[in-house]
């Protein structure tokens, strides 16, 4: 359950940023989570929803988790491909000597917040990405 650790860290970063921006409510948070980051989106959401309960800044925040697929670069042919783990195989030349470029990251992409007296509307179109409910590979 290291998702609890990560959720706590996400909240710490958000608190620091919101203080800098003088925001006092956060409405939504967008995370990008690689499918081989060893983080489970559902567990992350649960951890976030438990931790935010008594938090004035974050209690109303909705967590969006977008999955980032695995992208590899082949060390033999130089090809760049999206692959489906656990098959770390270059679809171009069949080599297993590949470097993972994407898919391991956990990025706090953006968030929306308000100041007292200000109300925010709907989410931006670009923040409404594909919600990730898929199982994540470890």
């Amino acid at each position, binding site marked *: 359950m290291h998702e609890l*650790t990560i959720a706590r*860290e*996400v909240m710490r970063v958000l608190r620091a940023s919101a203080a800098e*921006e003088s925001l006092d409510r956060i409405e939504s948070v967008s995370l990008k989570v690689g499918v*081989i*980051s060893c983080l489970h989106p559902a567990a992350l959401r649960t951890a976030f929803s438990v931790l935010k309960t008594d938090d004035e800044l974050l209690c109303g925040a909705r967590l969006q988790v977008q999955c980032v697929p695995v992208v590899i670069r082949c060390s033999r042919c130089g090809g760049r491909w999206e692959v489906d783990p656990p098959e770390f195989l270059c679809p171009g030349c069949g080599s*297993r000597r590949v470097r993972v470029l994407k898919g391991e990251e956990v*990025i706090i992409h953006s*968030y929306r917040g308000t100041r007292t007296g200000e109300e925010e509307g709907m989410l931006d179109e670009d923040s409404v990405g594909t919600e990730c409910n898929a199982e994540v590979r*470890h």
Partner: protein
Amino acid sequence: MKIRLAQSAMQKYDIKAEQNARLLAKSGVFAVDVMGSPGAGKTEILERTVEAMVQDMTVGVIEGDICTERDADRVRASGAQAVQINTEGACHLDAHMVGEVLENMTLGELDLLFIENVGNLICPTRFRSGAAERAIVLSLPEGTDKPEKYPSMFRSCAVALVNKIDLIDVLPVDLAELTLEIRRVNPHMRIWPVCARTAQGMEGWYEWLREGVRRSAAGR
């Protein structure tokens, strides 16, 4: 208002891991993370390894467990300087926990340091300690499917010790198939089939460690 952060949630941990790595490099210590499932034989591997290495160097071990000093006591009895971290429920060690221990260790006296993580093939994967290398211990009774089930862990390690090889005749596990499964997810992996109980097959691992110790001492 929308704020774009594009910041890694691991940043706090990755920065500390880099600091630990610099401290270890400056002190000329070769540090190796030891990972694996509970019961794979990580501590027994370290007991044999410490016994063999303390003949010509000073070895330290940081033991990570949810509770008890049991593992630290075991490697101490083998001749290592050992510090136990009790994570009190946490499923992995992180660079901050390790960094706190490093600050209180006399690193100048050490040649080789093992950081044995909590037994777990998932949570420790993304939390780097700052060690130069990572080793995974998996045991024959775990079967051949673990590399494919936990590819990130296997990809994060440079070497694998396949432990409990003395059970080869009584278990329906094909060592060649297991080797193939490991190489499917990590073609660069160095693999040594070993028996930690009797120290059978451990010489290649010892030599790999000695080479790392020489490299770290030279780079000091």
